[in-house]
């Protein structure tokens, strides 16, 4: 009985916040001019499209958010690091990924992870999972989403655009998982993922910051 009342109160609160929330996502880490200058006018448009998508998804359920973000980034064409960056393995930031409008599996995962985090999906539910793709027989990375710690995760993949529970993804063999924060907060992280020309020793993973601001 008590539980029902609490649930009801919570529901009303959520609804109120949702209905009357006037906060919107805006670009804050970098100016649009700078994006345009660096990556061209289409990149600017893509960034604006991303912000718009996030504003559309902001009041949706977590699953909806997963769908929208997964679809948005899966629209980007796949290219190997070698062809984009000239190196065997390179982890692009979300801005680089959107700017270049191409990338490989890790770039999709990183972009999806940061976007979902900004949309309010708890980082503790998201894992970056190394998996082997049996279909292509290659090392692969996907973003996995655990609704609860013990549940079967959902897989956000750039090979298969559909979000499926992991046990239905027989084409993937899981190898190892990292929680995103673990990876991106590590001090030494990604030293090996640098471009040869890059002299900065820390990656500005959040160089494209999109934050909620009151209108």
């Amino acid at each position, binding site marked *: 009985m008590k539980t029902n009342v609490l649930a009801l109160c919570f529901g009303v609160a959520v609804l109120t916040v949702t209905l009357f929330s006037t906060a919107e996502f805006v670009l804050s880490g970098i100016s649009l001019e700078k994006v345009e200058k660096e990556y061209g006018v289409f990149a600017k448009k893509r960034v604006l499209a991303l912000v718009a998508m996030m504003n559309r998804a902001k009041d949706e359920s977590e699953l909806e958010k997963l769908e929208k973000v997964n679809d948005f980034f899966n629209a980007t064409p796949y290219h190997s690091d070698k062809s984009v960056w000239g190196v065997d393995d390179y982890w692009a930031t979300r801005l680089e990924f959107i700017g270049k409008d191409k990338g490989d599996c890790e770039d999709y995962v990183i972009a999806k992870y940061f976007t979902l985090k900004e949309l309010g999906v708890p980082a503790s539910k998201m894992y970056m999972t190394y998996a082997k793709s049996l279909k292509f027989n290659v090392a692969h990375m996907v973003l996995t989403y655990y609704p609860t710690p013990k549940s079967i995760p959902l897989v956000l993949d750039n090979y298969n655009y559909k979000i499926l529970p992991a*046990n239905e993804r027989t084409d993937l063999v*899981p190898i*190892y*998982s990292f929680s995103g924060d*673990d990876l991106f907060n590590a*001090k030494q992280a990604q030293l090996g993922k640098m471009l040869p020309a890059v002299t900065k020793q820390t990656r500005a993973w959040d160089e494209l910051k999109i934050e909620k601001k009151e209108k």
Partner: protein
Amino acid sequence: MTLFKQMAVMLSLFLGVILACVMVLNFKTATAFVQDQLYTNAKNTAHSLGLSLSKIVDPNDVASMETMINAIFDSGYYERIALIGVEGNPIYVKETDVLVSDVPQWFINTVTIQNAYATSDIMMGWNRFGTLEVSGHTGNAYRQLYKTLIDLVETFVVIGVVVLGLLYLLLTLSLQSIKQIRDQARGIIENRFIIEPKMPFTTEFRSATVAMNAMVSKVKDIFERENETLMQYQDLLYKDAETKLYNRRYLVTKLPEYLQGDTTLSQGLHVMLSVDELDRFKKEYGYENYMKLIKKVAEGLSGCAGLCENTLFARLNESDFFLLMPFQDDVALKKHLDTMLLELQRSIDAQALVYLVIGVGIGVYNEHDTIKSLLSKADLTVSQAKQNGNFTCTMALQQPHSLILSREEWRKELVDGLSESRFVFATQNVIHAQDTSSSIVHEEVFIRLKGSDGFTHSAGFFLPMATVLGLADEIDRYMIQKMLQRFIAQEMNTPLALNLSAEFVGHYANIQWLKEQLEKLSPTQRAMLWFEVSNTIALHNLEAIVSLSALLKMLGCRFGIDSFAIPSEGAYYLQAIRPDYVKCSVVYLKDIMLDASTGKSQESLNNIVRSLGISIIATNIEDEQDLATLKYLGIAYRQGRLIAPIELLAE
């Protein structure tokens, strides 16, 4: 604090701070590195062990998991490895206490190392199985860091020592010039004129050295001019213009020093050479030949004078030459004179020999002689010689007391005197006269011998023989020892002045011995001991006296020159010795300072003596007229029979 010390301290501090800073920074870097390593190691282990654990297919196969964890844990690099389930329940935990045996506790307390803690997620297929937590072992980190610290300290100590060593070396070199400048300045104060030929490397020091050199040259110039003046007056007063020998006037001023009882000079031989009809010779043979003859005579007699270093040699007038020799060997002297006369005779034209008469008389003198008696005795022996035939040398040796004993008997007498303590002491006060009162400056000590004949003899009686027998320094040692015993036995209020013999100062061993004796005394006692040597000793043993004077000054004793008269070489030796005082006979002082023709000489002597910081003590004061003169001359330090008698010291 010296400049050297200040600079050394400053630079050492500077260096110390720099080294300390570098060391701290280094240590910090090392700490950060070790801390990083700890984290990296934990992280890597968490991942690799996590990967391995994820390979286990069966979630219930805890045994395999434990085995894997143990395998890693037992390497000893971990404090804790824990496998925690998804709900936070520990599945398997391995931990150990941190015990570091070879690192001191203070180090662990001081240096904080955050324990690195890394996690990794364990998957079983797509399912999350739990979290692996890995903590590195800080003990290893501490051990590594402590070793680093020790290495750093060792390295920096070595660097510090080397650099400080170099620093001190450079500073010493650089500040050497300041020391030189200081020595020059001190030298000027003490009238030593040091011209520094080596120019320092540092610009400022160099200009200072140049300036100092200029100043020293100037001061030296002034001193030299004064000395020059003094020497000119000396020449005017005391030198015979034709031969440059001393004149009668000089002889008269110097004789009292030879004829006082308490000196080695008070016994010996006198020689007089007299030439008759010199005027006629001059007329007939011309001035040039006359001068040749005179020079020949002077040269011949100079050779004689060389037999004894304390010889007093003067030309009394145009035709008389006189030598006073504190010297006993009349046989050698006569032989020398005979040879000389023979050569002289051969060199003179036969026609001149008809009327030119030259006679030489030898006699003995002792402390009982007076100037008058001595010169009349000399005249007498010369007339006897002339009667004995031309170009002859006559000896008139009334045996003085000292020659009654044979050499061996003398030796026995002196050695016994020493061993039986038959030497006794007498003192005479030297005073400093002020307007109404006077104070005792010091007491001069005289040595006496209670002879085996029952009489007490003054030094003039036995010292000449002691010198011949090589016992003079033994007697000096005896005197010094006796006086030191007095010092130790009783409180002394008046300084004692002891006369040292030429034999004593001439041997290094004696000086060493004296130094050892004096070092046993306290500085206050040493200030009560003054030493004197005669002017002749100072001139003939200059090097020894310079070092003796320096040694005595260093020990706090005072040093003086007795029987002072400015020698023909000038006052340079005073500059080298820098005595505290000189004792001059009042006759000499009157003579040099009151002569109308040499008005400036008083000023020059005063200037030299004053500039060297030397006090003049007038001696041999016999009558009231002497006192009046001294008053007029402004000489306040006085000694003599009129001032205070010589009194025997109580045993």
